Structures are given as C-alpha cells and as structure tokens.
C-alpha cells in the first residue's frame, strides 16, 4: 500500500481557519466575561489570516487535490474572499447588538467560523460526498446560531422549522445524488460529467435524479416553492444571525449551483434550464408580491431575498459563461446590499428595542439624515434603480437571458422588479415624508458607523464604476470553467 501525501497548499485557507477556530474555542474558556472583546478580536484576526492565505495563495489556474475531491480555482478563491469579507463585516455590525442581548459569547463566534468553513468547503467541493458534508456543516452551524437565543420562543420555532426542512431537503438532495451515482458510477464531478457526455448513463435515471437535486438546491437557496423557511427564519432569528443567514450562505448556494449543475451536469442544461425557469419566475412573483404585505422589515427583506434569488437563477439558467459571470456579480452585489440593509437595522436597534418594524423607520431623516441617506442608497440599489450596483446586477443578468434568446423571460423579470420597486420606495417614503414616532437618539459604535458608511458608499461607487467587479467575475468564471 503506497500513499502519496496530498498536495495541501490549495487547502491552506481552510486548514488555517479550522486551526484558528479550534484555538479560539479553547482560548475563549480562559477569557473572563469582562474581556470577551478578546474573543471577538481573535475571530477578526482569524478572518484576516484566512483572507491573507486566500489572496497570497491564488494561482489563477484550477488545481485539484485529495484525489480530485477538492478544487481550487479563481472562482472559488473570489467567492471565498467575498464570504470572509461578509462574515467580518457581519461580526463588526453585530458586536454591540450581541453585547446588549447576551449573545456576545465564544460559541457565537466559533459557530460563525464553523459555518464559514462549511461555506468554503462547499465552494471548493468537487465530489458529491464533500459537497454534502460541507452543506451539513453549514446547516448545522446555522441551525444552532438561529436557536442561540433560546429563551425566545420565536427563535426556537424558527430553528426547529429550519432544522426539519433542512433535513428534508438534504434527504431529497441525497436521493438525487444517489440516482446520479447509480447512473454514472461515480461521485466525482468531473467523472460524472464525462460519463454523461460519453452517453453511457441512462438518461431517464439522470433526469429523475436531477429533479431531486434541483429541489434540494432550491431549498438551500430559498426559492419558491421551497422558500417556506426563509421568512420565519429571517424574522425569528436574532438580527445578527439573520444578517449572517442572508449573506454568506447565498455565496455557498451559488457555488453549489455552479459546481453541481454546471460542473457535473452541464450537458443536461436543456433539462435543468426549464426547471430553473419555473422556479425563478415563481420566486420573483411570490417574493415581490408577498413582500408588499409585510409590516416587519426583516420579513419584508426575507421575501425580497426570495425574489433576488429568483433573479440570480436567471443568470445561471441562461447557460452561458456570460450568464454565470452575471449571476456571480449578482450574488456579490446582493451580499453587499443585504449586509448594508441588516447593518442599518442593527444600528437602529438598542437594548430592549429591535427596530424590526417598518414603522420604526418613520421620519428617520429627521432623526439622523446620514443613516437615512445610507438606507436610501441601499433601498434604491435593491430596487435596481440606475447608478447603483443593484441596477448593473439586474442589467447584466437580463442581458445574459436576452442573449440566450428568452425575450419573454426578460419582460417578466422587468415587470416583477417594477412590482418590487414599490416596497423599497415605501421605506424611503417612510424615512423622508413621515414624522418620527420614536425620538430616541441613535447611538452606535464608531467602527459600526464607519463600516456601514463605507458599505453603503460601495453600493454607490460600484454602481458608477461597475466594470472592475464585472471583469473580475468574468475572468474568474472563464478561468475556472475552461478546464
């Protein structure tokens, strides 16, 4: 028995993150309650280190290791970097929120890092088994995070719903994957793709498995008709956790679609394209229409997420490299907008007050014009108004769909985003035209205020100069999908 040690260099970021989070787990035991800030600082340091490994180790060519189970390519590097950045910002935004609610504990930080590790594993997975394990790592950590505020009945209910539905979706996904394994005889993405291309696999079994795989993926992304968990989890979870759920896991879900549908099942594009069209149109319809009726802003943003994810699928279903790059641009832009929106909700909250109702935004301009302006930027970006990153995200996705020759789909998507504009503009109307009901001063830590300002301005700057980010996405996708 000879065994060659796998090339560990591409896995350094993951290894560093795991080592760092284990160290934090132990170090946190010796940190007294008064110095809990240290745990937070270590966590941010771990994130900086991981980002450093990601940037310094980038090679620009796809590499595989662990016998082809792990793939390291420019798309993976970029997505992981965005995920690390999102988690770092999320921790900075939620620090004072967590301190006020007894969530500022070692477990919170460690579980967030575990979830990030799951995301990174999924982004780099090139094997069904690894993909599934990464997914479970993410789901379990997320479930624990949602339930962390366990004296709140709403949190516990949300965690329970998420747990049961996630288990169901995992079952569907595994069933689909086992069908694909049966048809192709391999669990490795590349070998599965080759087996399908060579025509040795039974098409009936393949499509049967594909249906279950798409259903499982749709659940993870939170799109109609597998979206039921999204509003309850967004509303029930502590806002800090909602901020996490709405950002980094979306990157993992995008990578999941790319690896599984495009990487392994790329030659079945005509089959999954029609499935994704249905899912995408339904998501945009249900998400946008239901969001209008919400009075809780977290719930409203949950439905808005559903519609955004429907838009994201448009890019993937166009089936071209340009479409994938547009979808990647969309997911990065969405993460940026979502971080800003929830960051402002966290900023407005204080001890014993959540700022999660739409009415809490009434007259925000009179209370604090700067925060109101930042929220305005994020809302127009989410609505897709020009000169914001959201506009270019929608534009690039729609032009990819147009290139694929589905004009009717473009018309439907534009109509849906018009409906969506209503509830984003309503927030702006509440902020600028109504009288404030709540006159308490808005207090926040300096780092929170500075970062949220930069975040919202990034939405504006990327809206004026989107080309570098678009080029980066296109380059990552073309370099990664060539092999």
């Amino acid at each position: 028995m000879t065994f060659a040690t796998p090339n560990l260099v591409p896995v350094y970021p993951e290894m560093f993150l795991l080592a760092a989070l284990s160290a934090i787990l132990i170090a946190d035991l010796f940190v007294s309650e008064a110095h809990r800030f240290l745990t937070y600082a270590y966590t941010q340091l771990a994130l900086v280190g991981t980002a450093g490994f990601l940037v310094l180790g980038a090679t620009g060519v796809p590499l595989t290791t662990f016998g082809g189970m792990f793939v390291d390519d420019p798309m993976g590097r970029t997505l992981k970097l965005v995920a690390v950045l999102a988690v770092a910002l999320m921790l900075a935004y939620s620090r004072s929120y967590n301190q006020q609610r007894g969530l500022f504990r070692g477990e919170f930080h460690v579980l967030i890092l575990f979830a990030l590790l799951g995301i990174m594993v999924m982004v780099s997975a090139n094997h069904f088994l690894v993909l599934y394990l990464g997914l479970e790592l993410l789901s379990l950590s997320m479930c624990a995070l949602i339930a962390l505020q366990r004296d709140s009945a709403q949190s516990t209910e949300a965690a329970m719903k998420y747990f049961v539905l996630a288990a169901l979706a995992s079952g569907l996904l595994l069933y689909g994957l086992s069908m694909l394994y049966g048809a192709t005889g391999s669990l490795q993405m590349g070998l599965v793709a080759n087996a399908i291309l060579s025509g040795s696999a039974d098409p009936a079994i393949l499509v049967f498995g594909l249906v279950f795989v798409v259903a499982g993926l749709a659940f993870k992304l939170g799109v109609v008709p597998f979206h039921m968990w999204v509003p309850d989890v967004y509303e029930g979870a502590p806002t800090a956790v909602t901020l996490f759920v709405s950002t980094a896991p979306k990157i993992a879900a995008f990578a999941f679609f790319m690896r599984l549908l495009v990487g392994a099942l790329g030659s079945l594009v005509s089959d999954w394209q029609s499935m994704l069209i249905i899912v995408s149109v339904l998501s945009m319809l249900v998400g946008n229409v239901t969001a209008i009726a919400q009075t809780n802003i977290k719930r409203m943003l949950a439905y808005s997420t559903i519609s955004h994810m429907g838009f994201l699928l448009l890019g993937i279903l166009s089936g071209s490299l340009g479409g994938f790059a547009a979808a990647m641009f969309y997911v990065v832009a969405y993460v940026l907008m979502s971080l800003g929106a929830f960051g402002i909700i966290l900023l407005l909250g204080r001890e014993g007050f959540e700022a999660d109702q739409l009415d809490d935004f009434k007259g925000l301009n009179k209370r604090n014009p700067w925060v109101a302006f930042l929220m305005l930027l994020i809302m127009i970006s989410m609505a897709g108004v020009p000169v914001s990153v959201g506009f270019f995200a929608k534009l690039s996705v729609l032009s990819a769909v147009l290139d694929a020759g589905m004009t009717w789909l473009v018309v439907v998507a534009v109509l849906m985003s018009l409906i969506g504009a209503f509830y984003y503009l309503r927030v702006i109307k509440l902020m600028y035209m109504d009288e404030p009901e709540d006159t308490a001063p808005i207090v926040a830590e300096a780092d929170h205020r500075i970062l949220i300002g930069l975040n919202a301005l990034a939405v504006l700057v990327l809206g004026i100069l989107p080309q570098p980010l678009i080029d980066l996405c296109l380059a990552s996708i073309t370099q990664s999908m060539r092999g």
Partner: protein
Amino acid sequence: MIDFPILIFSAFALVLLASGVGVITARNPVHAALFLVLAFFTASGLWLMLEAEFLAIALVLVYVGAVMVLFLFVVMMLNIDLDRLREGFWKHLPLGAGVALLMVAEMLLVVTSKQFGNLGSGLHAAPGNISNTRELGLVLYTDYVYPFELAAVILLVAIVAAIALTLRRRKDTRHLDPAWQVRVRARDRLRIVPMRSEKDQ
C-alpha cells in the same frame, strides 16, 4: 445431517424473527427496547456469517452500545402513558393493514422475480486472508481523508452547539459556592454601628 452453518443461520434467523415480534408485542416499553437489542445482536451475527465483520461490529457498537442505551434512558426517564399509546388502535387499523399488505406485495414481487436469483452470480467470495475492516481503514484514512476530517468537524459542531444550547447557569437556584463562603470577611456581613451607651444619658 444438517450442515453446521445452516444450523447456526437458522438459530440466528429464528431468534431474530422472534425478537422482532417481541418488539411490537411486548407491553412494557423497556422489554420492547431490550427485544430490539436482541434483534440487533442476532442480525450482527448473521452479518458475521456473511464475512462482513466490520458491519457486524459497527452494528453492535453503534446501535446496541450507543443508540439503544440512549433509547432505554429516554424510555425510563419519560413516564410514557401506555393506554394513551394504545388508543385509536382500531381507528388506525385499516390504514396500517393497507400499508402492511402493500409492503408484503412489494416484497413478494421482488423475491419472486427472475432477477432475484441472479443477484449474487457476478460476485465472488473474498479470499480468506482479506479483512474488510483493514480495507475500509486503508481507504478511509488515505483516499477519503478529506471527507473523514470534515465528518470530524461536523461532530465538533454538534458538541459545541449542544453545549451552547443547553448549558445554562440559573440565577434562581440556591446553589452556594463553598470557596466563596470560606472567603467571607467579617466586614461583609457585620456592620458595627457606634451607639451611645444608656448610662451616659
């Protein structure tokens, strides 16, 4: 004269079937759980006869050693109301009987099909010197080391999550810390108030 392996197989199979019946007929839930332990044990004996020693050991260690012990704990801790469980037996009988009949029919279809006998024809018995525990161990720690480590990380998450969600320091208990009690100083408890004595008045 009956072949010796057939004799052992029959013994294991009979005990397995009998304990399976015992699981659903025993009135006491603890007895039912113990019957289930017996069923697992005999099933692992059958696997041992198929030279699947790793599966046999795993079944005993995981199911008998861990799952069933946990199960027994739960059964003993929770005072299950048996009469309430038996309620509605006749109401649910038609549905249950229908499902059971369907399963019997499916099994008959599988067993009586022509393919059933051919299933083992392509397989060869492994040479006597191959241990499947060793073979599994070799690939588990080499080819599959990455998923193996990931599974370990998932278990770590489970530990962290379980502790984070259940460990609580209750403020309302009357728990006293002896170290804290010993360290008490007189001035923490005693207040000396200067008072004029009555004689001076």
